């Protein structure tokens, strides 16, 4: 297709949106930006779905009267995308609610700080030293042995 036609431009746009969303989810350090990148990836996927049912010079699948009908686009992908858009906003609302709770519990939304805070919390609950200290398991102390094998050996 030498001249850029409508469908190849839109396909590239949809693939570009999915790629930007995927890169954004992997690279972002703030959790809210991760949710935004997820929303962009969902938008790209919906565009690709609607594009799968498109036909050249076809009209929307709505009957305007009792006249002779032109060829229409495929209505099934449009019904699927209707569902997908509404589910996407439901998932985003739930993600934002969970982010509010994370901020209240840990005080930060940066994934690097959260990693250290959660690690310290788990190590504190398990009774072993955190990984950065000199007394971490494996550096100077032996690994903690489970209680069952401690009695048998």
């Amino acid at each position, binding site marked *: 297709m030498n001249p*850029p036609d409508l469908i190849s431009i*839109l396909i590239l746009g949809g693939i570009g949106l999915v790629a930007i969303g995927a890169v954004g989810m992997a690279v972002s350090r703030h959790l*809210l930006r991760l949710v935004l990148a997820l929303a962009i990836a969902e938008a790209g996927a919906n565009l690709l779905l609607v594009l799968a049912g498109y036909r050249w010079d076809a009209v929307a699948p709505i009957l305007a009267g009792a006249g002779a009908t032109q060829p229409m686009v495929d209505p099934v992908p449009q019904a699927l995308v209707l569902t997908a*858009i509404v589910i996407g906003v439901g998932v985003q609302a739930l993600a*934002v*609610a969970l982010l509010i709770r994370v901020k209240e519990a840990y005080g930060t*939304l940066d994934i690097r700080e959260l990693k250290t805070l959660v690690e310290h919390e788990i190590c504190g609950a398990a009774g072993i030293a955190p990984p950065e200290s000199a007394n971490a398991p494996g550096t100077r102390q032996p690994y903690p042995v489970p209680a069952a094998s401690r009695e048998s050996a």
Partner: protein
Amino acid sequence: MMVWIALVLVALMLGAAVLVLLLDNLVAAIAAASVVSLLLSLLFALLAAPDVALTEAAVGAGLSGAVLALGLRRLGLIDLGKREDSDA
């Protein structure tokens, strides 16, 4: 004719999507995501899918932006910069 309209819309949409990841201010990032949804609804209207265009405009550009902005307010991360005087 429609090719040029689609080209402009897709270019603006990809630019806004890249801006979501690059902007520091989170309110501006949410606004850029709403712009992506708005341009996407125009593309859906171009693709002879009026139901999907209506849903994307109402849900993506309206409700999603409202939900994210309300979450941002509750997180306490709204930062609108310095203003010399405020009106209404």
